[in-house]
């Protein structure tokens, strides 16, 4: 009976391997089992609806936080992640609208923490079926700039031949 108890104790102790928590922006992690957590609540500064308007043009993004998001390729790694959706109206006509906030692998918009005021942006344009990278920089609590550019390298058989349809250099206001 004592041996069985020790065996159970050993199994439980191995299966309850501690998960280490790291703050956002931690990259070089050795452990297999960890959680990159928004300990200082930086994501609160960007979650919500951001809008750019210029005459009949409007670009609106909605950002949501997914706490302890489990990456489908590395299930032992949890992260607090930001995913989003967008709507673009040009000259009063709807150009593109993402209705749902999708996570990986079908994401259309994700922001990754670089610093308390700067985030890397990865966005997919539903019109051209291509993506851009970029930077979202908080200028104030209610204002941010969004700049997009092409990522490094060339992807084979990429996109559908249509031109990029979304604005690439704008200032957004939090709603």
């Amino acid at each position, binding site marked *: 009976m004592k041996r069985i108890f020790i065996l159970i104790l050993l199994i439980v102790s191995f299966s309850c391997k501690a998960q280490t928590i790291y703050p956002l922006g931690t990259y070089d992690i050795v452990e297999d089992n960890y959680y990159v957590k928004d300990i200082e609540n930086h994501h609160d500064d960007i979650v919500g609806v951001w809008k750019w308007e210029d005459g009949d043009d409007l670009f609106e993004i909605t950002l949501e936080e997914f706490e302890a998001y489990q990456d489908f390729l590395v299930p032992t790694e949890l992260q607090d992640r930001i995913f989003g959706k967008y709507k673009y109206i040009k000259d009063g006509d709807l150009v593109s609208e993402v209705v749902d906030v999708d996570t*990986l692998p079908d994401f259309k918009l994700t922001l990754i923490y670089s610093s308390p005021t700067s985030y890397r942006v990865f966005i997919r344009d539903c019109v051209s079926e291509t993506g851009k990278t970029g930077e979202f920089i908080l200028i104030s609590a209610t204002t941010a700039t969004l700049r997009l550019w092409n990522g*490094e390298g060339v*992807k084979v058989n990429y996109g559908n031949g249509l031109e990029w349809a979304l604005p690439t250099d704008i200032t957004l206001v939090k709603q």
Partner: protein
Amino acid sequence: MSVFSGADLYSVYWLAQNGRIADLSNFVMFVATPGQSASADDDTLYAMTISNPVQFNNVVSSLGVVPDLIDQDYGRKGINPNVSTELNEKRLAEIIKERKYGFSLYRGNRNDLTEWTRIKIKSNGAIRENNCN
């Protein structure tokens, strides 16, 4: 970017998914980059082989149709043109291991193309270099 880009990796997966790589075991992809500055001293040379076809094909089936997925993964991992060549190299080796991409990464000697060093990550997170000559 001083190492293979996310676009480079995606392109290999796309080629495999669409039957454009006849023999995975003999496939080698090379990249030469200007590194972090205009100085030739910063130039880099890397090669990749598909060392684990099972892992590679798992990724092909899950990532092959999502071309920007690896780009955002690079962002999550902090691989970008603004960090040092050494850090990008280490993080690329880490991401290959963590994500089970199925690749092996090699650093070449830009002055002697017969000299190649395999870059791996040890369990303690340090780089292990194996000379291939």
